[in-house]
């Protein structure tokens, strides 16, 4: 599906109003929906954000050219529903960033049809394909490649796909062609690939398997399990082996001045032979509404502590060049900003540990959570607290996250010290 971008405020307003009209009509239709009849829901959401930048960051010289800390608000209108075999999730979003005119985008996050032909089941269109049994990090999420643990995350955007699904009494398999016609694209989630997904239920355990082939990673083979050994305890594990992997890392230490000042070469793609990803975890829940989640993982495709230390050294070398004759300040800022793309890689902790304590008022409206993520390799950490209230139609969310750790730890190097958000949504 093509993403539409529009910037003129009047155009945004018209489109939002049109969408609101469509949504209202849909909401009316949904009241009497039966199987096959249109059935739609509409949600309006306002999210306000605040960020505290780390002005003493080694990467501070490039911050002005990045998006770090700029997000201020987001207004979303969301339509979700189904007409016949067609499922839709459409969002219209207006975003405000510090020092930038508000911008808008209209996205078909999902638009797909689930079909049955000759006793076989197919899906075609754009659909979310997230998968895996884990919470903080998902080795088996080889198609959607969802960024986990985002604060006030926007709706996921699906992947163009075609799948053939087969179901038995206690199992299933799906053959999925993702991004048909694509070879290697800018991001891994945009690559064309073929995947076979297998599911089997054995007693109180779910077993999952995946085999995927893509130009970028070659063959990927993964397996996961989730089991419930008692009324209160759930255990899960997930592992993936890739034929090849890659990660974005800084230049080698002996890089020339010209290389250091080039934004295009601030990071290089490092190939990794047969990397592995593994996660184990579990959740315990009490009758009083408390739950404790613990997960430990290893991600062989994440930059190593040595890579983050090299990023710091290069930022220092660039800062030292600043002000020297013949060295434009813009080049220093541009190359430093480009090097912050290292944070765009989904997982920053090669060996990670997440502990999450959550509480939900039994049968009630309130819920709260606190989670600590620790990177065991470099000592970096994040601390996140969140609070939510769910009413009849209204929902309120608020959260706060802090980043910390030793000076050269990945989470400590993030140009943000803390972030906070409040969100309010109304569903029809």
């Amino acid at each position: 599906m093509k993403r539409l971008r529009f910037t003129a405020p009047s155009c945004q307003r018209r489109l939002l109003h049109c969408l609101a009209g469509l949504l209202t009509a849909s909401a009316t239709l949904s009241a009497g929906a039966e199987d096959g009849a249109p059935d739609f829901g509409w949600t309006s959401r306002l999210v306000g954000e605040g960020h505290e930048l780390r002005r003493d960051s080694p990467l501070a010289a490039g911050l002005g050219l990045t998006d770090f800390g700029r997000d201020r608000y987001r207004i979303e209108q969301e339509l979700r529903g189904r007409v016949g075999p067609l499922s839709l999730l459409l969002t219209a979003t207006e975003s405000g960033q510090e020092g930038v005119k508000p911008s808008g985008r209209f996205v078909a996050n999902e638009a797909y049809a689930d079909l049955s032909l000759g006793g076989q089941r197919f899906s075609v269109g754009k659909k979310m394909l997230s998968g895996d049994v884990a919470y903080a990090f998902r080795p088996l999420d080889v198609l959607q490649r969802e960024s986990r643990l985002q604060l006030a995350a926007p709706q996921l955007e699906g992947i163009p796909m075609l799948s053939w699904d087969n179901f038995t009494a206690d199992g299933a398999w799906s053959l999925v062609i993702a991004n048909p016609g694509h070879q290697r694209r800018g991001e891994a989630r945009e690559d064309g690939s073929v995947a076979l997904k297998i599911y089997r239920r054995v007693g109180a355990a779910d077993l999952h398997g995946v085999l995927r082939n893509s130009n970028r990673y070659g063959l990927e083979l993964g397996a996961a399990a989730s089991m419930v050994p008692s009324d209160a305890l759930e255990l899960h594990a997930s592992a993936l082996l890739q034929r090849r992997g890659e990660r974005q890392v800084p230049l080698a230490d002996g890089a020339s001045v010209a290389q250091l000042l080039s934004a295009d070469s601030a990071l290089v793609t490092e190939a990794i032979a047969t990397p592995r990803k593994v996660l184990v975890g579990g959740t315990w829940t009490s009758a009083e509404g408390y739950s404790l989640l613990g997960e430990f993982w290893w991600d062989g495709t994440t930059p190593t502590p040595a890579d983050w230390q090299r990023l710091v050294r290069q930022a220092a070398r660039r800062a030292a060049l600043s002000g020297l004759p013949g060295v434009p300040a813009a080049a220093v800022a541009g190359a430093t900003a480009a090097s912050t793309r290292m944070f765009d890689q989904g997982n920053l902790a090669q060996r990670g540990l997440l502990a999450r304590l959550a509480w939900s008022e039994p049968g009630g409206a309130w819920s709260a959570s606190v989670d600590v993520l620790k990177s065991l390799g470099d000592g970096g950490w994040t601390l996140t607290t969140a609070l939510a209230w769910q009413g009849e139609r209204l929902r309120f969310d608020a959260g706060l996250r802090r980043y910390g750790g030793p000076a050269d730890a990945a989470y400590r190097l993030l140009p943000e010290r803390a972030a906070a958000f409040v969100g309010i949504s109304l569903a029809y």
Partner: protein
Amino acid sequence: MFKRIALLSLAAISLAALCILGIPLCGQVMAAEDAKVKALLKQADAYRLAMESGRVETEVRTFRAGVLDKTRLYAVYLKPGHRSLVLFRTATERGQKMLMLGDDYWLMMPSSQRPLRITAMQKLLGEASTGDVATMTWGEDYDGRQVGEETIDGVPCLKLDLVGQRKGVSYPRIVLYLAKKDHHPVQAELYVASDKLAKLARFQLGTVDGRKQVTVMTLIDHLQKERSTEVHYLSRTDKTLSDDYFNPAFLVRADLTQ
């Protein structure tokens, strides 16, 4: 001495004979009692779900201190073999699904497209306890005995003490009161695993398609005193889904209207 041995032998033979003859007799009495209770439960179940498979449209109203707090809509598909699929139909929960296969449970959140295996405890903590909505029969899940008769709200009732026969039942023990006259459910005391009284259920009958059916179940929470819940059964249809729909992997598909 010989006389004492003879007396002891006679006592041992008598005891053995009592065991050999008495246990089957006792077993027969218990089996008859079991069959009677099963028959009573089957009759009571018919007032809640008079079909083996079907779709039940349910509206759940939760009250806090007597004031309406929330209203939630669910479509529940039931199939023999302890299979139920709950579709959440309220605007704030649209797209959520819960699948229950015996003692195993899965929850599907629309934002992730990933069925989550959840524990019995997590199922119980859900809003309005989806277990209360998805469980429409006692006969398949409970055994017990009649422990007396009582009058509830002026209705003479049989009092049954029931014990869950599966690990996954929401309430391991139920004290059920059935009307003596036609065996329709009048009241149920629902006990959690610690044998604490969790909820008191009262059943309201109405005439649906010419027959008497439970139209409202009121749950008075005894653990959270200010809470009560009304489960309104809006419709019951004999729509049957194929087995595919009761496969956890199928939850990511949208073949059903939410």
